[in-house]
């Protein structure tokens, strides 16, 4: 017998096992730490809202599917609305028959929230989201990349070019640094150390919250932050070895006036994700981007990547960013056509912080 239920504590162990089995192909019991992380994220997040819970799909009393849902307060033209992010979607292949995936998503979209979204839905699954009523946001489905150290980036991707290339990754590290130092002297702006006119200083979550509160952004759709929720969010985004290098920084003019901020992972030598980069005023975004790239260079980062923000496209293009569409999509659902239209047209302040980009689930080994 099939049943859709709100995800409960009794399902946690099975959900953790399902993650390892369905996503990582590992048929072993999940360690307690993974179950505890499910509890922290899905039952103890500061935005818990009755009626907007994660969903458990049961077949004959056994967990056969799961959709992790995290609600968030947003505003639409200044009025409070409720958003819900789908952060983890998994089905047990042992129960491959049946329309559980579609039923889970229809239940998700039928919830009381005003807007629902999911980033990074695999190409194969995106049609199921669409069939359940979602629209594909082609705009937010793009990623941007900024290569800072080309040989470091090439080394980072060596795992994708066969076993021989992967085996050479270690020795290649001895060459990548000197080669990158050499090319940074070339008369090509894209290869040189990024210049920056702002002062960058790392900050705490509380300090960053105060700066963010001064933002003059006027996008139709904006996430709402409160201090304690933001501090929890940043603590989670920076927790665990998989999130090494987590860095929050404010970029300011020489007189100390903040211009913007960025939140990203700054692991030396690799490609690192930017969770959010923003300016207090839109005219300042080029300078804040310069500050981000310069800061990442100083940290030894080989390259940065992040989710497209349509507000930044022109400035990013001018700063040698490249854009690519990975084989997954950003999807969104809203019953109000004006809310949906605002999102699809890019009139939002959404970033990787607002979906699942900060979760530890995909980046930890869970051994």
């Amino acid at each position, binding site marked *: 017998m099939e049943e859709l239920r709100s995800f409960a504590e009794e399902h946690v162990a099975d959900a953790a096992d399902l993650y390892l089995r369905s996503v990582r192909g590992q048929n072993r019991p999940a360690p307690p730490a993974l179950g505890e992380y499910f509890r922290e994220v899905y039952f103890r997040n500061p935005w818990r809202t009755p009626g907007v819970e994660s969903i458990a799909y049961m077949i004959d009393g056994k967990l056969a599917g799961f959709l992790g849902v995290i609600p968030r307060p947003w505003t639409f033209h200044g009025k409070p609305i409720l958003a819900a992010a789908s952060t983890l979607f998994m089905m047990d292949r042992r129960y491959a028959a049946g*329309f559980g995936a579609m039923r889970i998503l*229809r239940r998700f979209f039928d919830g009381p929230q005003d807007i629902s979204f999911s980033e990074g839905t695999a190409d194969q699954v995106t*049609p199921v989201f669409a*069939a359940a009523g979602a629209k594909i946001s082609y705009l937010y489905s793009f990623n941007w990349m900024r290569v800072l150290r080309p040989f470091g980036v090439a080394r980072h991707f060596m795992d994708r070019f066969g076993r021989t290339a992967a085996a050479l990754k270690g020795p290649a590290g001895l060459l990548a640094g000197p080669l990158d130092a050499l090319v940074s002297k070339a008369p090509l702006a894209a290869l040189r150390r990024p210049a920056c006119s702002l002062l960058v200083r790392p900050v705490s979550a509380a300090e960053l919250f105060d700066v963010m509160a001064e933002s003059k952004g006027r996008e139709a759709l904006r996430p709402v932050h409160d201090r304690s929720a933001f501090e929890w969010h940043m603590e989670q985004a920076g927790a665990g070895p998989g999130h090494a290098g987590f860095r929050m920084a404010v970029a300011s003019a020489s007189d100390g006036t903040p211009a913007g901020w960025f939140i990203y992972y700054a692991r030396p030598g690799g490609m690192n994700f930017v969770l959010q980069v923003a300016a207090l005023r839109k005219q300042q975004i080029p300078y804040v981007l310069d500050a981000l790239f310069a800061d990442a260079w100083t940290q030894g980062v080989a390259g940065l990547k992040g989710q497209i923000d349509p507000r930044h496209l022109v400035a990013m293009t001018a700063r040698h960013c490249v854009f690519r569409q990975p084989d997954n999509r950003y999807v969104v659902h809203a019953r109000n056509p004006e809310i949906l239209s605002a999102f699809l047209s890019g009139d939002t302040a959404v970033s990787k912080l607002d979906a699942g980009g900060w979760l530890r689930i995909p980046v930890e080994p869970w051994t």
Partner: protein
Amino acid sequence: MSDIRDKVTACFRNVFPDLRPQDIPSAEAESVAGWDSIAQVTLVSAVAEEFGLALQPDDYERLNSYALIVAFVETQLA
């Protein structure tokens, strides 16, 4: 009418290449291996595209057998 059945059958063959032709007319979600949400959406979308039909979200789940799909197409084109 046979043209509709032929085209729906072709859609089934594309989505379920291992399904025997003689089993297609009686095919339904509960009896065909691998007929999950992804296969369902792929199949129904292929049929909609073949016949130029618009679908509602309810249609994706409801049209879960060859017979229902053929009946749907016939109704839409009548």
